[in-house]
């Protein structure tokens, strides 16, 4: 890598350069350590027995690795009166997140396509309102939304939660796709129109195949938001439809007597695994998608 930000004077000596480079690495290493420390504590704690946690050191490695805490967290820990671990709630989250992500991404793509490529009267106003939707604090909408879900007969159900997440994700998904699609020359749509293609045909055959990077970005964003959501999860669910975040809270808060830190940690990691997984699998597209937008053939 050639570093253009160095001034000519300081680039004179190669020893200075190397020292600077190392200084940089050490700084970065320290930052990384700082961020990874809590995760390290979580992981090690989750593999320790309660006995060891009580007697041992917070940041020491487990003397004896045990999976008991993981087992309990997954299928035995109590979330109130029920003691089935996070498993049922984990599946609730999956059932909420996957359809909500897919639907909000698809509708966002269509919205973005319309706003960016089919300028209609009031398109700017529509988009501005959509953007405004991104910035509405969720607390503000809790009561009206609860009322609405009640009227729709979806209160406390998983479809109800899907609906809420789709609605509140649309602002962002529309924004993402719109910003991606405005960089696509309008002549492409024109060419397809002359070729005889209509609205959906152009979307399906020309825009969607171009959209992989932004789809990945949107899916990661939406999945993280929805999976990690707590407020909607606790407000619009009832026993049996609660997502994993709510269950995690209940596990941690409903233990009486000695805190089972190892179980809490294991449950927290389980709850975080899917988002971690999505980042690891699709992370490189995420970065690419955020910086992309070039479709210059």
């Amino acid at each position, binding site marked *: 890598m050639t570093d253009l930000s160095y001034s000519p004077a300081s680039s004179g000596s190669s020893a200075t350069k190397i020292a600077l480079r190392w200084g940089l690495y050490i700084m970065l290493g320290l930052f990384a350590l700082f961020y990874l420390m809590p995760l390290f504590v979580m992981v090690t704690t989750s593999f320790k027995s309660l006995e060891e946690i009580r007697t041992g050191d917070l940041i020491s490695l487990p003397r004896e690795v045990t999976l008991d805490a993981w087992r309990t967290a997954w299928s035995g820990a109590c979330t109130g009166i029920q003691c089935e671990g996070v498993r049922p709630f984990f599946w609730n989250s999956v059932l909420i997140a996957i359809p909500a992500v897919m639907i909000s991404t698809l509708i966002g793509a269509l919205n973005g396509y319309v706003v960016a490529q089919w300028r209609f009267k009031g398109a700017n106003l529509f988009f501005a309102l959509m953007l405004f939707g991104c910035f509405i604090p969720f607390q503000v909408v809790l009561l009206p939304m609860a009322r609405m879900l009640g009227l729709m007969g979806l209160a406390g159900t998983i479809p109800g939660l899907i609906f809420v997440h789709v609605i509140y994700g649309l602002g962002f998904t529309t924004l993402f796709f719109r910003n991606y699609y405005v960089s696509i*020359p309008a*002549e*492409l749509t*024109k*060419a*397809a*129109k*002359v*070729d*005889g*293609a209509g609205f959906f*045909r152009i979307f399906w*055959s*020309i825009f969607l*195949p*171009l959209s992989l990077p932004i789809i990945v970005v949107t899916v990661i964003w939406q999945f993280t938001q929805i999976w990690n959501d707590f407020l909607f999860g606790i407000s619009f669910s009832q026993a049996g439809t609660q997502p994993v975040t709510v269950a995690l809270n209940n596990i941690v808060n409903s233990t009486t007597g000695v805190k089972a830190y190892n179980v809490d940690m294991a449950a927290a990691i389980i709850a975080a695994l899917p988002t971690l997984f999505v980042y690891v699998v699709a992370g490189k597209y995420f970065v690419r998608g955020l910086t992309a937008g070039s*479709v210059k*053939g």
Partner: protein
Amino acid sequence: MAPILEINNLFKNYGPVEILKDINVAIEQGDFLVLVGPSGCGKSTLLNCIAGLEPITSGKMAIGGQDMTNVSPKDRDIAMVFQSYALYPTMTVAKNITFGMKVRGIDQAVQDQKLAHVAQQLQIEPLLNRKPGQLSGGQRQRVAMGRALVRDPKLFLFDEPLSNLDAKLRVEMRTEIKALHQRLGASMVYVTHDQIEAMTLATKIVVMKGGVIQQIGTPAEIYNRPANLFVADFMGSPAMNLIPAKAKANGAGMQIEIAREKGDPIVLTDTRNQDLPENVILGVRPEDIADAAIGRGGDTQEADCIIDIVEPAGADTFAVMQLGGKHVTARLHAETTAAAGTAQRLAFDLGKVSYFAPETGLRLN
């Protein structure tokens, strides 16, 4: 036969802004119409209106005798080549070319056969399985042409198809497009800001400025008899010399007097034109000012002129002088004896000059 394209009283506004004003054009089957004008004058907008990609504000348009004013682009029987080529980035060259047929549900065998024919015609067979991103600019341009040709439409529309190519390729493709037009006998509307492209390709030129048609005519008419100062200045390179002059009636015709900074005015006698107003702008093409010594036919009148600058350009040598307060360029033979700072006897071809009114800019003769 009805004209292949007929536009009557077309107006186009974007919001409150009038972009095209009272456009009237008609072309016959086989015509190569070139819309030319400086950038921003509304050429692309007009082409988009013809294609149906932009709604028109008022007026009428017919293609092949049928009213198309409110018909959608796909039903106008047109094909269009865009400035950016607008190839579908995720499709192969073959799919790009057949996309239109696929959308229209044309039989696969017919698609294959038409694709093969067009690919052979444009010599792009080796490229059929590549994506647009893997092509050079010239190749993309060919593919864009292929996508239009395969449709075999009533009317081809081209929006500055050569402007993204380098100079050499541009000239090659220009020739190729002309050959294609002659071979197919197809009707074409071609937009360019390059007056040389317009002159070389067109059977009919429309010169536009600020959304208004300045002149319609064959390349020769536009070149030899520009309708106003704008057309005179825009068409031709180097541009027509536009020299302020005084006209006086004298027995045989008009006496044209051109002031000079140093020395007496040049006085030319024009026997072809009568009734010119006193103040005129004399338009002379550089090639209509020649070395008197070398001589040429036509209705020439000679005068001694001090040459300020000599610019050899290979085949020709351009001599620049000061007449009527303007730089005036003469296109001389390469062997000319003209030298900077010395007087040269030049012959002005009065048979080919134009006169314009200084106030309105309109042609007088």
